């Protein structure tokens, strides 16, 4: 089962993951990553903007690469856009496979590429207004692991 989505509203990861795992009968391993808006005292809200003509296509392209690289039975990749507050999930990636190595590595691969290569820009609202979040060096290091 392949389920790739951009969501504009708050979602509850468990409500996606339960049906996803059930939709892949015979699996041996499911690895799931959920990224949430961190509760930093100075951050009032986080806004994710994207460039629609590229984003979903980019997520499907990434899913194709993950499905080609790892031996998967299913892949779920969901990303929020819009304004989020602390504790809200931003991203959920879940991979179902016969064996754990494929499930874990596929989630790791998708997260490294989603965060560093997908077309999302984030800004956070602090008491003095909106601030764009810069790319992080760590993300580039993470990406190099897969070359």
């Amino acid at each position, binding site marked *: 089962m392949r389920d790739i989505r951009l969501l504009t509203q708050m979602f509850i990861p468990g409500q996606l993951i339960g049906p996803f795992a059930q939709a892949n009968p015979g699996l041996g391993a499911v690895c799931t990553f959920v990224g949430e808006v961190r509760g930093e005292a100075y951050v009032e809200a986080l806004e994710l*903007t994207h*460039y629609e*003509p*590229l984003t979903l*296509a980019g997520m499907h392209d990434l899913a194709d690469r993950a499905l080609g690289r790892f031996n998967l039975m299913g892949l779920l990749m969901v990303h929020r856009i819009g304004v989020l507050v602390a504790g809200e999930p931003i991203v959920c990636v879940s991979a179902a496979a016969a064996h754990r190595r494929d499930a874990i590595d596929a989630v790791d691969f998708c997260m490294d590429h989603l*965060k*560093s*290569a*997908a*077309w*999302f*820009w*984030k*800004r956070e609202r602090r008491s003095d207004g909106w601030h*764009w*979040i*810069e*790319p*992080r060096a*760590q*993300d580039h290091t993470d990406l190099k692991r897969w070359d």
Partner: protein
Amino acid sequence: MAVRVVFLGPLADLVGADEMELPAPLDWPALLAGIPPAVAEQLTNARVHVACAGRVVADKAALRAVDGDEVALLPPVSGG
């Protein structure tokens, strides 16, 4: 006869608008000349990409946008 130029992320703040129109056809020198100088300067950064008609352009200098195309200016995406 126009090309829509879209400014993404922090670039929209630099311009003070999300988009503008420029005459078609639009090549790389015309794009740089037509957009605000602060954004044109950003575009020389290799990490700022350009998409045309829904595809990221491999070589920005080879941009050839025609009437009706949307050209998107894509700054580096955010981390963590």
